């Protein structure tokens, strides 16, 4: 092993940059709290009320800032008998020790300020404790690397004869080995951005404006009064088309920015027993997922993405012992060969192409249409009675849209399974696929509505530590068979689900 330049056996403090981070964080929170107040100042109403709130918030912020800074000087970490020890507390001394073998992963994060001072934020993920994460705001880059290598190397040594608990392979010099699966260049990034779900972006914009509107109203600005100043518009075709085009443009733009900021320079790496994703423009974020923590994987696309052959891959993992903290890692812009390599490294030869896939019962569609039609007829009747033609047309279009959606959904829904894996496919315009190792199932439910029980149908729901997977409208006979089979596998499989 490389000789360490740092002595971790004596109490170490975080880098002084951490103070800056703490200040930055507090200011950030204060600004976020103050946005409505600031907006009021900008608009120019309700000055008296605003200043009280301002003083109050700044007062509290100052106090918490001082507290955090004192806390910084009282926080130490060191290594003792294969344990990482944290000491903290302003009024009360608190000492937390984390045994190395309980450390699941050590992740780094770097935002712009971190990059300027070449420090890192460290997140330590542990198993078997209520609080599953420990954070250091800022530690010198080299020191952090060395700390991680040291911990992982020790951990591996202790575990050299046991199971594959270790998160990453360690070279002889103590650094880790990673094999790249894929990287996203700037061109790919733009492709990903362009093919995002733009309707979601429009929704985000609307939510944002609505939020501002509400906040303004809350602090006593009569927004509707201002809107009277806006000259009446004539709602003709051109204006609507321009508005829609503008909306589309803005949403594409926002999707692009969002993608570039979060996924800039994305690297998707494979270590011996896990994956690692590094990405980010301002904040360089590093997340890792150990194989045994991944509960199931899913991938999806939409019409645009299918056209260029991109998929969003998700690694859904359970975290912490209680596992109610769900974390899923999204890797955009995956292509078929990347997906195959991920499946191969997780499940070996999955033999998906030999898997027999089944369709669900078509009553999934007909029953839905029947219920929806009743609702629609009532609605249409009322609208015709009151001679409200415009809502009637809108309602009809919506009705047809929902029926079409359900039909597409019926044609997409498929499922299949073999000894090891359950495969469920779905989606409406795009495809969404889920692949679940059967032994990771936590519980199973067979659910029947009155209609379903009359017709010998049911939904079968598989609960995992990272969300549930459902197959709707299959025959009860088949569902019983599947559940007998799967429960048998869960009960006889002695692999750890986490």
């Amino acid at each position, binding site marked *: 092993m490389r000789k360490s330049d740092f002595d971790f056996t004596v109490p170490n403090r975080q880098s002084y940059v951490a103070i800056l981070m703490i200040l930055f964080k507090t200011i950030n929170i204060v600004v976020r709290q103050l946005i409505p107040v600031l907006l009021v100042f900008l608009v120019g109403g309700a000055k008296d009320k605003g200043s009280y709130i301002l003083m109050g918030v700044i007062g509290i912020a100052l106090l918490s800032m001082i507290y955090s800074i004192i806390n910084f000087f009282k926080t130490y970490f060191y290594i003792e008998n294969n344990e990482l020890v944290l000491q903290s507390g302003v009024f009360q001394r608190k000492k937390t020790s984390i045994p190395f073998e309980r450390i699941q992963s050590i992740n780094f994060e770097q935002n712009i300020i971190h990059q300027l001072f070449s420090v890192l934020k460290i997140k330590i993920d542990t198993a078997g404790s209520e609080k599953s994460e420990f954070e250091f705001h800022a530690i010198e880059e080299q020191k952090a690397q060395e700390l991680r290598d040291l911990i992982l190397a020790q951990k591996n040594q202790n575990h050299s004869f046991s199971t594959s608990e270790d998160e990453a392979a360690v070279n002889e010099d103590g650094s880790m080995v990673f094999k790249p699966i894929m990287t996203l260049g700037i061109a790919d990034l733009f492709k990903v951005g362009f093919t995002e779900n733009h309707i979601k972006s429009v929704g985000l914009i609307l939510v944002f404006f609505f939020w501002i509107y509400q906040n303004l109203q809350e602090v006593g600005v009569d927004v509707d009064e201002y809107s009277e100043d806006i000259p009446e518009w004539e709602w003709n075709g051109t204006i609507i088309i321009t508005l829609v085009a503008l909306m589309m443009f803005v949403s594409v733009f926002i999707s692009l920015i969002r993608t570039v900021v979060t996924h800039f320079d994305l690297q998707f790496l494979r270590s011996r027993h896990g994956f690692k994703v590094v990405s980010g423009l301002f904040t360089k974020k590093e997340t890792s997922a150990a194989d045994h923590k991944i509960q199931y994987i899913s991938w999806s696309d939409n019409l645009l993405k299918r056209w260029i052959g991109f998929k969003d891959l998700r690694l859904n993992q359970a975290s912490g012992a209680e596992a109610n903290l769900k974390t899923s890692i999204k890797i955009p812009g995956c292509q078929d060969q990347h997906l195959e390599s991920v499946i191969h490294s997780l499940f070996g030869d999955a033999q998906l192409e030999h898997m027999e896939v089944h369709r669900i019962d078509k009553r999934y569609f007909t029953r839905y249409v029947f219920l929806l039609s009743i609702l629609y007829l009532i609605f249409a009747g009322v609208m015709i009675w009151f001679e409200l033609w415009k809502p009637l047309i809108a309602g009809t279009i919506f009705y047809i849209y929902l029926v079409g959606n359900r039909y597409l959904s019926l044609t997409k829904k498929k499922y299949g399974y073999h*000894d090891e894996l359950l495969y469920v496919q779905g989606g409406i315009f795009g495809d969404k696929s889920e692949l679940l190792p059967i032994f990771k199932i*936590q519980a199973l439910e067979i659910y029947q*509505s009155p209609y379903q029980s009359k017709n010998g149908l049911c939904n079968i729901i598989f*609960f995992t530590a990272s969300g549930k997977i459902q197959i709707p409208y299959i025959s009860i006979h088949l569902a019983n068979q599947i559940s*007998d089979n799967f429960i*048998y596998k869960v009960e006889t499989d002695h692999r750890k689900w986490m």
Partner: protein
Amino acid sequence: MSFSNHQIQSASLPTISDITFEKLDPSYRKISVITSCIFCLVILIVYLFVGYFIDILYHWPWILVFALGWSVLTSLIIILAIKGYTYEGFAIREKDILYQSGIFFKSVVIIPFNRVQHCEIEQGPVDRMFGLSSLSIFTAGGSSSDLNIPGLAHDKANQLKQFITNQVARDEEE
């Protein structure tokens, strides 16, 4: 570790379709009727309380609308409480526990013992009057997959909990 992968004839697997579910304790029916009555009473009290401040609620037609709605709701809830009892039941197998519920919307949940995180016994004030408890079984599958079996005699609930804990422990040793 020796690897084995015997083929299992699917017909020879234990099947859930011929399980007979054990009924809950008979006095659980009384408890569910009592708790539904309390619930309906609370609605009535809230209405009367609010009406004390808002006069219109005590006048025609609102008082009539409420009286009708309330009596229909109350009788429905009580009928459901009485009927629901016959549809609820649990079954314990060597390696898992099953729970069945729902009059109209039926559901069967299966939890293998080797996926149980922990168990809890709870006893509400009404439960205590009848000496009953409920047993909750938690998995890592999230709150929607956690089981809550109500209406167990206190001793039986303890016994069940002990049994499940033993099974879980045994499974961990293997």
